[in-house]
């Protein structure tokens, strides 16, 4: 049983996109300093730092980001890099949470960062395959669009899913991205744009896929007892769950759903004492459009095979019944892999604080983040509440 409660008291985020003028360190510094400024604390208040990053070694020759994250702030505190592919940011968040719950820290800085545009697209594809099973997927020439296309085909074979329903996910997320000042793509698109974009791995076209992105995000976590000293509207961590599965998609029991999402969700919702009906918004891991469809069902937002219709009906827009990915998601906001999980927290916190501008979900009280590593080998689900849980 966890006894200590944790709150988010500050957030920071860089512009997402091709940020040519900044390297890994500069992105990280920008997000860190913004988050501390938002929390109105000096660096010296920070007891520990956790940083999520996947490919620093592969894309920048830089592992060991712990030392980088602390020295930007002239600190000598415990500073640790955590990796779980595209779920790295959420894993860093979980470690921050446990550090406070353990009693070892009262104030923790959590970062996510990825610098992807310094290397070629093929180099990125190669590096990201480190998230799958090298021996049984990478060696076979599998790619991540390929893996999600395999899941999409299995899903379609089982439940049916129209091209329009899949494309509607992308259209909705670009609509949200157009209303998020830090998003990589701030331009609405049409169903036709998705249909006509280049085929990547059937049925997924380029506009079904999240892009290659530079970016960083940070949040300041605080022992909930003292949160009000720093922040008028702290957002509380009501529940957190994490689960895993085999690296290789082929070894899993089902190909058309992500079991680890179901397990992580169950943990997080139980801790938060909520059901899916209590949710006002969710940020889900839409690395590909099909991933958002599966996530909606695995989180219980609708029954199996029903997500496509919900999206098609427009219910997942920010002003719909079940807002999904108001940030624009990985699809339109961009997907700097190590930063994505922390960006999801930033979005939910801003929504619960009423600071989400043109994409604000009215009166949002409870929000959820859902972050997936690889094709489903790691999943983290967190529940956030405006009031003390």
């Amino acid at each position, binding site marked *: 049983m966890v006894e200590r409660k944790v709150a988010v008291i500050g957030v920071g985020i860089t512009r997402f996109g091709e940020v040519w003028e900044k390297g890994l360190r500069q992105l990280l510094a920008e997000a860190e300093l913004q988050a501390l400024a938002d929390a109105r604390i000096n660096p010296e208040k920070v007891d520990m730092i956790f940083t999520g990053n996947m490919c620093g070694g592969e894309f920048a020759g830089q592992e060991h980001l712990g030392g980088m994250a602390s020295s930007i702030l002239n600190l000598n505190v415990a500073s640790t890099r955590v990796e779980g592919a595209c779920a790295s940011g959420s894993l860093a968040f979980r470690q921050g949470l446990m550090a406070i719950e353990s009693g070892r820290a009262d104030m923790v800085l959590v970062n996510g960062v990825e610098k992807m545009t310094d290397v070629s697209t093929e180099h990125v594809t190669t590096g990201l395959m480190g998230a799958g099973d090298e021996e049984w997927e990478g*060696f076979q020439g599998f790619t991540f669009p390929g893996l999600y*296309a*395999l899941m*999409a085909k*299995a899903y379609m074979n089982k439940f049916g899913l129209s091209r329009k329903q899949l494309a509607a996910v992308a259209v909705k997320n670009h609509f949200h991205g157009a209303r998020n000042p830090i998003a990589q793509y701030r331009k609405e698109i049409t169903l036709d744009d998705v249909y006509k974009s280049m085929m990547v791995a*059937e049925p997924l076209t380029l506009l079904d896929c999240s892009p290659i992105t530079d970016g960083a995000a940070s949040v300041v976590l605080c022992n909930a007892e003292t949160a009000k000293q720093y922040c008028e509207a702290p957002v509380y961590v009501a529940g957190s769950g994490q689960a895993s599965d085999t690296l*290789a998609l082929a070894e899993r029991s089902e190909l058309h759903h992500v079991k680890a999402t179901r397990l992580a969700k169950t943990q997080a919702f139980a801790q938060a004492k909520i059901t899916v009906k209590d949710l006002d918004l969710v940020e889900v891991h839409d690395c590909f459009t099909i991933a958002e469809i599966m996530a909606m069902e695995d989180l219980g937002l609708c029954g199996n095979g029903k997500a496509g219709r919900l999206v098609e009906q427009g219910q997942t827009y920010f002003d719909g019944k079940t807002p999904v990915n108001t940030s624009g998601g990985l699809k339109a906001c961009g997907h700097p892999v190590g930063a994505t999980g922390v960006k999801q927290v930033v979005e939910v916190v801003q929504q619960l604080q009423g600071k989400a501008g043109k994409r604000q979900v009215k009166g949002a009280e409870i929000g959820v983040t859902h972050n997936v590593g690889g094709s489903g080998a790691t999943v983290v689900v967190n529940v956030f509440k405006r009031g003390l849980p």
Partner: protein
Amino acid sequence: MFEESAVIRWRKYTDRYRLIGNACKACGETYYPAKEQCPCGGKEFAAQQFSGKGRLLTFTEVKAAPEVFESKTPYVIGIVKLDEGPKVGAQICDANAGDLKIGQRVEAVFRKFYASGETGVLHYGTKFRPVF
């Protein structure tokens, strides 16, 4: 994709080229790739040769590939359920994506994968082809 050295290929020879996995001595369940610990609790295994026959569960055509496979695009990948039970991911060869159907019969074949950039060494492995 990560380029494998000679020692890696040597180590993986049995599993990868000869479709040998293992079977739990306690419950009889078969595994490919081989497992170290069975969900039943069993830790003793016997080598298990797989027939290479199976059914295609899902497939797609890859149009944008990692560095070493770039010259081979497009190519088809899929997940095969072997008749003995395990599922395995592999390239599907000797067919266009348009000719394939989910559920159809396939069989394993030994094929060239790619030539290593630096050394020109050829990498081989198992692919599956349709049985019509």
